[in-house]
């Protein structure tokens, strides 16, 4: 690319107390302008209270071919989920 502005990934906290969510991307010459552009592009309808921007090429991602080794082992650990355990009704909510 000759002189293209870098691509930024945009994360927005929609409401207080929620975590930031990826909403999309945009181009900007630097981080400050990326935040401003994100404000103009992704919060036109009141969508956010906080913005994170990350330059896209700084994101490391897991590889799709690792899906098996990465995620399948957790499938067998059913005891990590609360529904694995039976609690007698008389005990009440837990």
């Amino acid at each position, binding site marked *: 690319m000759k002189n293209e502005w870098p691509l930024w990934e945009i994360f927005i906290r929609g409401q207080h107390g929620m975590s930031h969510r990826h909403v999309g991307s945009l181009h900007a010459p630097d981080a400050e*302008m990326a935040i*401003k552009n994100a404000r*103009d592009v992704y919060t036109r309808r009141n969508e956010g209270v906080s913005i994170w921007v990350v330059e896209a090429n700084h994101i490391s991602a897991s590889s799709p071919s690792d899906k098996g080794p990465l995620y399948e082992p957790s499938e067998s650990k059913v005891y990590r989920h609360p529904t694995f355990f039976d609690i007698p009704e008389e005990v009440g909510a837990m």
Partner: protein
Amino acid sequence: MATPVNKEDAFSQFLLRMGDNTLILGHRVSEWCGHAPVLEEDIALANTALDLIGQTQMWLGLAAEVQGEGKSADDLAFLRDAWDFRNVLLCEVPNGDFGRTLMRQFLFDAWHSIQLGRLMKSSDERVAAIAEKASKEVAYHLERSADTVVGLGDGTEESHRRMQEALDYLWPYVGEMFQSDEADAEMVKAGIAPDPASLREEYDVLVSRILGDATLIIPDSSFAHKGGRTGAMHTEHLGHLLTQMQWLQRAYPGAKW
């Protein structure tokens, strides 16, 4: 131009000045929609224009109320001729290139943000309420236009040259924002609005700092074009702007849109 003699006329004059500034500048900025250098800027400029149009509805709405002649903000925007407009000339000069548009925006935003800060303490609650809402929008306009002016001033050789040219062209239009007349004196007396001249010092500090960061040189001249905020003499450009803006309302009087 009739010299305002009483507080009502002066108040109406003041509101028209506020509303016409935002109307005409909002119109100019909206001309960029679909034509900006990059999508992100296109969207950002539209946001600025939308804020300015929204502020126009409030200022001209209040002006119409104060005038008490049963007019609406739309009547004032679309059915007055050039001599009735009270915007400063800075707002009506053509967009030029993107650099001139952003320089004009910055020079206006800097004044606008200081003015709205003062108006938030207006003795008139309605004025204070509009200023309160508008000041948040304008704080962002200023941040964005200032950043862009710095970025382009301190960018490439070409962008620097263009920004200096924009500043040289626009600087003679800056002084008008700080000229005072009897209507302003009336507003100061009523505690409604500040004396325009009293904003200059703060303005100069702000503008010098940003233009310094932008490596741009403020022209060594205090000459100021005038005639916009009094209505005495607009530029030739305003008439062309109005022929577009007002065309439908003029061609089909009384129609509802």
